[in-house]
């Protein structure tokens, strides 16, 4: 068969081949240029630096780390920090955003306008400036010696917020919390889906299991709670939220909430008015309509947008670098400076964020699929 440009199928094949060729050539040129440039400067790209000691310290770490730890360890610290900061601040953003988004549709005009002002202010100022601002607030708390003591063993100072902690090994604690959350979610869903049984039973069972796990991980010979005690310039015991972590959380949560609020509001507004009317016509009260009709429908409608928003907020954790929180990006940037391994480290940075994203999209899509309504078209 001879080739003819007028023939659609043949032309399509040709176009695709050209497209691929152009892209591959560009990639090839980039790789070759890089090699040559590196060679000229006598630099080598490799991974051996990962085992060298960093010689620098990291102010916030959930796992053991010191000066002699390797770059690999430092990167792990940064990655865990990003996950930690991201999980907390994004969850808070979603919760707060849902409340504010709902408030924006309130029939109470004051509530509505406060929510509106909130959204406008926090949406329209760059996150990095907000982070600077909250950081300034956090470091202007009184010094540890004059720390504000709050009932129940909490202390607020410019070195951070100190709070009581379980005397339970970290991993056990984590497992217990995860188990409780997952267990409750599953039992609520199952109860809803089947319409049989009470979700309370399931929640109680998972709570009991969580307690057992927590008991197994208890540190021997210690009280259940580890209370922070003032001592000199610091507090001993308990948990600490450093100003860097605290202000990063507050900044991202408040900033994110303003975006989430808009999504939630749009989600509520996109529910066909007819459904709400039908609910009214059946005699359902506002409270029931909200929990049984509007909320579940809103959640389903916003899930895809919310996935993007969560990913976006997760990426926003990189502003940690501006206020000294050692997130993944910050640790990578610092490591580049200390090791000079720019290319390898940027590669690791990209892989790290891809991994985070994949996980989020995967989870959210799974949730989306689980909640998807059979036969319901978008």
């Amino acid at each position: 068969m001879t080739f003819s440009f007028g023939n659609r199928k043949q032309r399509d094949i040709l176009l695709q081949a050209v497209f691929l060729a152009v892209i591959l050539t560009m990639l090839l040129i980039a790789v070759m240029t890089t090699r040559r440039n590196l060679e000229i400067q006598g630099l080598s790209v490799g991974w051996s630096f990962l085992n060298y000691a960093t010689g620098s310290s990291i102010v916030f770490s959930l796992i053991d780390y010191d000066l002699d730890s390797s770059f690999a360890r430092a990167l792990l610290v940064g990655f865990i920090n990003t996950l930690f900061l991201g999980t907390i601040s994004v969850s808070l953003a979603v919760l707060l955003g849902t409340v504010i988004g709902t408030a924006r549709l309130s029939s109470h005009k004051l509530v509505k306008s406060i929510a509106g002002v909130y959204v406008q202010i926090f949406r329209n100022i760059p996150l990095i400036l907000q982070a600077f601002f909250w950081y300034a607030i956090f470091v202007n708390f009184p010094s540890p010696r004059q720390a504000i003591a709050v009932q129940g063993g909490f202390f607020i100072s410019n070195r951070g917020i100190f709070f009581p902690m379980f005397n339970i090994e970290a991993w056990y604690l984590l497992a217990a919390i995860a188990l409780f959350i997952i267990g409750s979610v599953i039992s609520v869903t199952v109860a809803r889906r089947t319409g049989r049984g009470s979700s309370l039973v399931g929640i109680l069972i998972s709570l009991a299991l969580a307690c057992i796990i927590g008991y197994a991980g208890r540190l021997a010979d210690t009280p259940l709670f580890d209370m922070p005690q003032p001592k000199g310039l610091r507090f001993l015991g308990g948990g600490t939220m450093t100003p860097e972590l605290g202000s990063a959380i507050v900044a991202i949560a408040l900033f994110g909430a303003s975006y989430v609020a808009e999504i939630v509001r749009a989600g509520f507004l996109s529910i066909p008015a007819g459904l709400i009317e039908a609910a009214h016509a059946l005699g359902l009260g506002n409270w029931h309509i909200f929990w049984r009709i509007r909320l579940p429908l809103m959640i389903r409608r916003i899930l895809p947008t919310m996935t993007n928003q969560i990913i976006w907020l997760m990426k926003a954790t990189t502003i940690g670098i501006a206020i000294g929180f050692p997130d993944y990006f910050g640790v990578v940037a610092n490591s580049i400076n200390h090791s000079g391994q720019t290319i390898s480290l940027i590669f690791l940075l990209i892989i790290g964020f891809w991994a985070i994203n994949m996980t989020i999209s995967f989870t959210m899509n799974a949730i989306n699929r689980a909640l998807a309504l059979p036969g319901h078209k978008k």
Partner: protein
Amino acid sequence: MTTSALAIEVDGLCKYYGAHQVLHGVNLTVKPGEKIVVCGPSGSGKSTLIRCLNKLEEHQQGRIRVLGTELNDEIDNINEIRREVGMVFQHFNLFPHLTVLENCVLAPMLVRKIDRKTAEEQAMTYLERVKIPQKAKNYPGELSGGQQQRVAIARALCMKPEIMLFDEPTSALDPEMISEVLDVMIQLAQGGMTMVCVTHEMGFARKVADRVIFMDQGKIVEDAPPADFFDNPQHERSKLFLSQILGH
């Protein structure tokens, strides 16, 4: 519920959207067990009228008494009325995140405080009456339009209303599905339900209506038994409308 000689009593009803008046002093009475068909050109205020009857819209002037209770601003009063008045919409408005059965038991459980088991049993009898019990566990999205509309009727019936309002229940349906919905409605009418029904299905009107009401520009122009209305319309506008509808 106070019993009364009249199921619905509308007197000088005026309704505005902003400055735009859509109902101009409508008067209407419906006796218990009566079946009324409302028709008229698009925008004439048919939907607005029947939506005022269960207070989905607020009226500005005139009075509406449903089952002997006057509709006013008290919330208790509204919900009491809505419990007794079922409504079926053009676009079904089933709750897409609930199964057919859940759609039917939701309101009885939450509003009438019936326990789930009784509510489900009762829902199944109504689903059987609309000939769709086998879809109880399906979601509305999995049903055809005609099936959805029949579920919507069953859902309204589960509240055991005294009056049923229908707003063009068949106009969003494909031609073949219209009859299955009309069949259910006819059966319901024959069971003695009080019905106010906006529709352009003239076959249905002829068959079951006690009176046909023709509206135009927010007023009731003609109010007559179907035989008179179809064969001998009094007003120019009704004539024009009938010729267009029944046309070709």
